């Protein structure tokens, strides 16, 4: 059972895949998984090679001129795509929520891009009508991290619903920040590290060792923190779990 509900007009959508710079560089397996899942559900996936970064790091740290310069490139890079799908909710939020208000961009252009940009899981659910929970094969207990910047894109309750059939061990304080925060992580490393300690304590307290985290930046922070502290936590994007459950990808050792 793959939980798929096909309606006529949803078949063969043209999807531009926005991999995001961090996923591209550090976690290509997440991109691979997402592409295979999208194809499995009938999308034609394109990867416009002009894409780089949406400008989010510059935006959050107040360098809005740089952010605008990078965001300006995005509508062009994805001009030919009907949809833009990204495995990062924070990059989706950058385009959809902050982008249109940014000085130095063509607001109309960015608004059009915003309207066709989707975070991966919400695209599966709302556009492809995939029952994500039904696709996942139960395996070891999982816990999860809710990325703060997903607020407005999807909520903790959505994430819980997607993980529905798995043996989910929610961490205490489910929406606690991991302490990354972009340049904040290197501007105030000691503080970022303490926030990370708190987060890892919650994840460890869940009892599960597999952490579902749909945000490359948070994974970079938490996996790096877990490794430094010798904690046996592993981090996976939901796309990877989906691809493995649908047998589109080998499970990772």
């Amino acid at each position, binding site marked *: 059972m793959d939980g798929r509900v096909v309606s006529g007009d949803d078949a063969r959508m043209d999807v531009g895949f926005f991999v995001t710079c961090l996923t591209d560089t550090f976690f290509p397996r997440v991109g691979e998984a997402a592409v295979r899942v999208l194809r499995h559900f009938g999308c034609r996936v394109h990867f416009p090679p002009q894409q780089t970064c949406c400008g989010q790091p510059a935006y959050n740290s107040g360098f809005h001129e740089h952010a605008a310069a990078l965001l300006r490139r995005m509508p062009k890079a994805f001009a030919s795509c009907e949809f833009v799908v990204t495995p990062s909710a924070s990059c989706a939020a950058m385009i959809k929520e902050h982008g249109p208000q940014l000085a130095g961009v063509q607001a109309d252009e960015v608004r059009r891009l915003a309207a066709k940009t989707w975070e991966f899981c919400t695209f599966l659910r709302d556009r492809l009508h995939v029952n994500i929970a039904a696709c996942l094969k139960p395996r070891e207990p999982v816990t999860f991290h809710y990325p703060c910047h997903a607020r407005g894109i999807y909520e903790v309750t959505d994430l819980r619903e997607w993980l529905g059939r798995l043996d989910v061990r929610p961490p205490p304080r489910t*929406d606690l920040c991991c302490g990354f925060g972009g340049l904040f992580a*290197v501007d105030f490393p000691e503080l970022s590290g303490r926030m*990370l300690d708190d987060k890892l304590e919650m994840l460890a307290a869940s009892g599960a060792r597999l952490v579902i985290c749909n945000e490359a930046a948070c994974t970079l922070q938490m996996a790096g923190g877990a490794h430094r502290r010798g904690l046996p936590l592993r981090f996976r994007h939901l796309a990877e779990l989906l691809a493995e459950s649908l047998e589109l990808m080998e499970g990772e050792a």
Partner: protein
Amino acid sequence: MSRRSDLRQRVAQATRNERVLQAVHLATWRKVDAREQSFAALRHAGALREKAARLRRHTLENLPAYLAQFVERATALGATVHFAPDGPAACRIITQLAADRGLRLAVKSKSMTSEEVGLNAALEAIGVRVVETDLGEFIVQIDRDRPSHIITPIIHKDRREVADAMARELGCPRTEDPAELTRIARGYLRDIFRRCDLGITGVNFAVAETGTLCLCTNEGNGRMTITRPRVHVALLGIEKIIPRLADLPVFLKLLARSSTGQPMGVYTTLINGPRRPQDPDGPQELHIVLLDNGRSAILKSPLREVLTCVRCGACLNACPAYRNVGGHAYGSVYPGPIGSVVTPLLYGPACDDLARLSSLCGACRVACPVQIDIPALLVALRARAADRQPVGKRLLLRIWRHVMEHPWLYRLGQTVLRCVLRGAEDGWVRSGQGPLRNWTLVRDLPRPARESFRRMWEARLRDER
């Protein structure tokens, strides 16, 4: 007030103070839980917050008119209204009042605005003794400390420290029992209340329609402060105005729930002028000092939303950064998320870096009873100060932008990064150089993937199926 290197250092130091952070963790989590529980039990909580936010915005948009109305009504009730353009002016007005009347002993109910203008020091400079009567503020005062939270001034202290301070300063037998400590403080303050001649309070809400001052407290000290002395001075920022008495319940329902999780504060006091002939008690004179201190300028700025704040402290309790540095590291009267917006606006660009002391996680926005988008305000402040960031950081960001604008450079950058970040056998970098030094101070960095996604795409993914 907070220079850049100072801030970084203060923060680093604060993160090592285990005793303080343990106290702050315990207290903030307890308050987060209490707030969430009380809001879960409140019907139409979302609509109420929406209404409160709308009312606050409406008031600010029409502030001059509401202020004029408030002044007129309060004066009609017999109060004297003063206007202080800045902090020193507020101190001058109040010290003059005290000097003219020969007042010598002032009792104070908790007031952040008085902290903002440094009122205690100004009064003591002319020989008026000032005694804080809120238990937390009292302990801060006898311990010569500073408040580290706008609602819970001694959130950074544990029971032991309080016991030490009380025994040392009051000469009482040392005890760590909170009830006993409270009893001792109450006994001490009773005597002060008997002798005081000036009462100073802040104000939670000032009602334009009726000239009423509303005071929300939990300990009863507020009522003693306004009834015992012969003169009552109420100090408030001009943004504390609300239009009508009927609006008050909206805010009362939200304020205590957001602060402490109580459905309502223990004492809600409505003050309508000084003592009238038929009244059994109350002050002979009521002076209301309306403080601007930069608020009019904020009102004209794009960041005016910050003035809708009701000072409930929910954002401090919710903030994971506050929880891990405590209030003193902010170096400001107003710490935490809202403080990081207010402080640079009140004290100027030297404090702009406070806006960077946040991961922008948005827990503050979720907690705020009047729906202030604090992360957006922090980002706006960061933007205002971007040109004043260290030259090295600005250069790095410029290079980064240039790389990201050119896909071939970006691609090359990925390769270079992979070569530079060799890491250990297991693929993890433990001690980074240059800009990565601060990263690996507290966490490892995975080595960039051997094959980036775009290379994988070109090599095989594109042609699959």
